């Protein structure tokens, strides 16, 4: 399979935080969501993949390039957007277009201006006069306008209304339709992500808790609800993220232990519910 991204035991250690080791891959033609609570290491992961930080150990191949130098040389094949990336204050959309045309050999002015119009951005307004959300849209339009084989997007849905999020979802899905391009994106809007991400990488406090198909993650657990008297010791022992009220309880139960929930109300959790029950540090075990 043609892989856009192949990551093996990638780790980064700071005095106050450790990420990894992470191991995952992203084949061409798919979308991968990077999820986890705040401080899980999502942005650090993306910064490592963009060679903005150096890994403490491990390696990765991006669009076939194995070394940082080779990856920097092949930047044209990579479209990226991070929260911390901005364009020069005084640039209008025309300036963005003319400058990016010089830098990216495959820059598509028509596509960029089309996206600017689609995102309702005034092409004559200077970058610094745009709202933060609109600046993000400009950065996104840049990432989408040079026919990159891999898109790496950090919180692209942040600050977008539901209509704009839906447009973005459609845009990303059409982007990978040729089977050559892939998208890796992080988002806090996990339910949105669950609708169109083929793969998920789930981080909790720097640790890789899950990598695989979205449906596989969701089918791993059951949300179990019942009355207080129905909470057995076995459920407490095997369940995750136990929540108790004066009248009842709810918890996540591994599907393999489904038999423990016989007679109780069970349902497949959505991604938001899963994240809430698994907790910020993944240590909310019952």
């Amino acid at each position: 399979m043609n892989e856009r991204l192949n990551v093996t035991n990638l780790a980064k250690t700071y005095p106050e935080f450790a990420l990894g080791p992470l191991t995952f891959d992203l084949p061409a033609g798919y979308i991968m969501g990077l999820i986890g609570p705040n401080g899980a290491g999502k942005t650090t992961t993306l910064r490592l993949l963009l060679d903005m930080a150096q890994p403490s150990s491990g390696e990765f191949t991006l669009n076939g390039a194995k070394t940082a130098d080779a990856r920097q040389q092949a930047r044209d094949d990579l479209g990226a957007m991070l929260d911390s990336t901005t364009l020069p204050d005084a640039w209008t959309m025309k300036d963005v277009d003319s400058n990016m045309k010089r830098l990216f050999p495959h820059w598509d002015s028509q596509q960029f201006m089309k996206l600017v119009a689609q995102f309702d951005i005034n092409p004559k307004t200077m970058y610094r006069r745009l709202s933060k959300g609109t600046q993000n849209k400009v950065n996104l339009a840049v990432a989408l306008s040079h026919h990159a084989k891999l898109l790496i997007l950090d919180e692209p849905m942040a600050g977008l209304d539901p209509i704009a999020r839906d447009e973005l979802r459609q845009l990303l899905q059409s982007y990978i339709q040729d089977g050559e391009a892939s998208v890796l994106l992080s988002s806090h809007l996990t339910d949105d992500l669950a609708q169109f991400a083929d793969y998920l990488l789930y981080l909790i406090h720097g640790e890789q808790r899950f990598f695989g198909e979205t449906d596989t993650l969701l089918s791993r657990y059951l949300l179990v609800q019942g009355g207080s008297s129905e909470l057995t010791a076995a459920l407490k022992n095997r369940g995750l993220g136990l929540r108790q009220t004066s009248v009842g309880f709810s918890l996540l139960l591994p599907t393999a232990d489904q038999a423990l929930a016989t007679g109780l109300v069970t349902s497949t959790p959505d991604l938001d519910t899963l994240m809430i029950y698994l907790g910020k540090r993944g240590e909310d075990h019952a």
Partner: protein
Amino acid sequence: MRDIATMMRLDWTTTKLHSIWWIVGLADLALVLLGVFVANTRFLMLGAAAGMASSALMMPFVGSQQHGLEGMLALLPLRRRIVVWGHYGFALSLVAALVLNFAVVDGVTGLIRPAEANLSRTLGVAAGVFFFFVLTTAIEYPMLLKWGFERAPFAVYGTLFGLCAVLGLVAYLDPFEQVVVWPTVAAGLAGLLVVLGGSLMISLHVYETREI
């Protein structure tokens, strides 16, 4: 080489050129008019140059909403060493343009007051402006490249205040009337090249390994 030129061009476009050249033009006009009424405007010119240099030279590092432009540069198909070379190329070309400008203004001032006009004075002022700008670059850039604009305001303001203090001392001593111009310019240039070369080496090293 082509990539360095591309990077230099990018730096020129990130700078609000129209604002800068308007300010330069107005400063030129003010200095020429002052030359009509005030006998010696060369130190006023150097003061104006100090302000101009510190603001114009940091422009390639200034992004929006307190973020620098390093993030954007890291995502472009440019190697880090090219980014550094490009920044220095921008600075030197800016210095050359401003020095030429101030040399012309000094020349015009000399035409207004022919009794005080002489080539060595004009060249002395030009050399002084050139020395000042390049020294500013050599001190500022390694710090800006190491910490980024938002984390290193002292790189800009510290350099400005420090060099202004030195200029004040130079103004007080007024050595231009006593020294022989060409050997002084040659020695200054040689020293400046050494400082600039060292600064460039440090910048290449720190930016290559910097986390953005």
